[in-house]
């Protein structure tokens, strides 16, 4: 008798506990994103008061344009970092893709769409190699992607042989992609936003997306729960590579001049943006929205310092301080959340 009474009780209570636990986790991380957005708003407000021209039409356009490529790369990187991995090859992939696209369109009149598709393919190719080595080769991601960074860079140097793609050789349609706009909104930020929103939706709603978080939280538990870890990790790298390659094509469109080592060293900026944006480097938590905000914050700091006439050397120092602050906050939040969750499940 008592058994039958108890049964409905537990079955009703369990989902409720799960739901409230999830909403707690959500609330904590929404708070994380809100705090970055707040910092960003403060920065923009302060700069705007000091120099009202910071936010005129051209100013807003510049801010969005400056952030677009980094936002894209941060979205790709987040998906990998969420699975408790890392992709250090992104800078090289952008460089290779930008050069490949530049070389392809140089002196021709290929349209912007062809170039974007080519960039995507080049990036996806690089991503699939990294992904296969990490997931099937079971080699630590740090080492694999570091190796890929150098290999891709080597291929790029070997191919470029010191050649340079100049703006005069790039078709106008491609350059327009980098500087043009629709309804007053520049293309680059629009593209970045579409990729961002799409990725956020998939990560939050689809089973495959949720499984990436499961893998990052506890690979062992995910394996026991039947998550196809290798396939998911491979997909994450494929995505990161494809997005980086895509960003390379946009790089060509934005800067016009392309050489073998564009985006050299950007992998670290991207990882910083992701971590500042609340995607924990140990995996399992964070959203691409946060990562995108992190990227926007980092580039806006650069622009704001320039407008405020502060020597640019402070920029790196400030980015470094932000990074440390973000990691400390993550640690504190994690400890508190674990405690809160434990309390709830004990109840």
């Amino acid at each position, binding site marked *: 008798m008592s058994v039958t009474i108890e049964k409905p009780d537990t079955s009703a209570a369990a989902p409720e506990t799960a739901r409230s636990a999830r909403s707690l986790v959500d609330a904590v991380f929404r708070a994380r994103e809100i705090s970055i957005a707040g910092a960003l708003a403060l920065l923009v407000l302060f700069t705007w008061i000091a120099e009202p021209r910071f936010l005129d039409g051209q100013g807003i356009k510049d801010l969005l344009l400056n952030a677009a490529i980094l936002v894209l790369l941060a979205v790709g990187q987040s998906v990998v970092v969420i699975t408790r991995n890392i992709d250090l090859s992104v800078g090289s992939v952008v460089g290779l893709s930008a050069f490949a696209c530049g070389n392809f369109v140089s002196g021709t009149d290929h349209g912007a769409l062809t170039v974007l598709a080519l960039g995507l393919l080049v990036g996806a190719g690089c991503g699939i190699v990294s992904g296969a080595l990490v997931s099937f080769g079971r080699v630590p991601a740090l080492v694999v992607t570091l190796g890929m960074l150098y290999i891709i860079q080597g291929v790029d140097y070997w191919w470029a042989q010191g050649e340079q793609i100049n703006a005069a050789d790039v078709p106008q349609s491609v350059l327009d992609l980098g500087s043009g706009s629709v309804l007053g909104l520049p293309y680059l930020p629009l593209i970045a936003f579409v990729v961002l929103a799409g990725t956020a939706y998939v990560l939050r709603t689809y089973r495959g997306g949720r499984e990436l978080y499961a893998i990052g939280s506890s690979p062992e538990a995910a394996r026991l729960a039947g998550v196809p870890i290798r396939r998911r990790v491979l997909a994450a790298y494929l995505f990161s590579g494809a997005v980086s390659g895509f960003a390379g094509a946009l790089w060509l469109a934005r800067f016009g001049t392309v*050489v*073998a080592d564009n985006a*050299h060293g950007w992998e670290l900026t991207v990882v910083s943006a992701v971590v500042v944006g609340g995607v924990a480097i140990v995996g399992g938590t964070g959203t691409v929205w946060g990562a995108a905000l992190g990227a926007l914050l980092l580039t806006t700091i650069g622009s704001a310092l320039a407008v405020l006439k502060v020597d*640019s050397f402070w920029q790196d120092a400030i980015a470094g301080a932000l990074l440390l602050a973000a990691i400390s906050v993550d640690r504190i939040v994690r400890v508190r959340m674990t405690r809160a969750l434990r309390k709830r499940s004990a109840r």
Partner: protein
Amino acid sequence: MFPSSPARRRAAATAAAACALAVALAGCGGTTKKDNDNSGAARSDAKADPGAPLKKGLKLAFLPKQINNPYEKLIDEAGITAAGEFGGKGKEVGPSDASASSQVSYINTLVQQRQDAILIAANDPNAVCGPLKQAMKKDIKVVAYDSDTAPACRQLFINQAGSEEIGRSQVQHLAKQLDYKGQIAILSATQNATNQNTWIRFMKDELSKPAYKNMKLVKTVYGDDDDQKSFQETQGLLKAYPKLKGIIAPTTVGIAAAARYISGSSYQGKVVLNGLGTPNQMRKYVKDGTVEQFALWDPKKLGYLGSYAAAALASGQITGAEGEKFKAGKLGEYTVGKDGEVILGLPTVFDKSNIDKYHF
């Protein structure tokens, strides 16, 4: 060396960036730093014989900072072609990275191969000294170009242009465009690039003359020879100084980035951009009116002059002492200056009328 900086980024990037890297790693601009114990150009006891003919079959080896540096590739190719003119044989070898010590093993190999002359763009003025001195002991002539070694480690340095001329001419050109009036700013590479800072010092000195009393240098910013950073610094300048009339960007990465930004912004036609850039890079912006003119020396002439100078050394026409003269093919006669420096000449100014004649 080239208009650029240290910076770790964009090594092979544009010519500038590549040289930049090397300069950075070298921790100095070879052309400007002479304050080490290797001062005083290397001298041999041999007597110069100005009348000696150029020897046939001379073997010249070009050793650039790194092989995928587009700017130095142009120099080396021109040098190799020039060697063909006087019946010599040139070749280019070099490391794939521009780190301080990467050239050492290449020098040793070239010495073993018994080349007649080594032409080097040094990644570090001192790191390559030992092996170069060994080479000179074995009667292999050493000529530095683009980026100097310590003076004691080479017989000649082919300098593209004097730092003073570069700095002053940049201000003179911009002043003419602005009718000697208005606020100006400088977009440099990195804060500790020796060549950039030397040029900027001469720019400031030129600006202090009475002719420029209505011109004011309001700010020097550093784009680190990075596209994005140069974009942001240019944006910052234009926002922070609404009355800004002109920008000098003495770095090829910086000037191309600034031109690209201005060409797609509301500032096009409102601010004058001048500086050092390559014609290929700037062609589009000169044609669409974003940039009226910019300057650079011709790297091909630099390679050509280097080749002839090395041949003159190897043939005994000169020894590298001050005041000696030699003929450099179609470029005419050159005189060896103090510390074994040979200066190519003033930078060439490129504008709509002549840009299509140049392809580098």
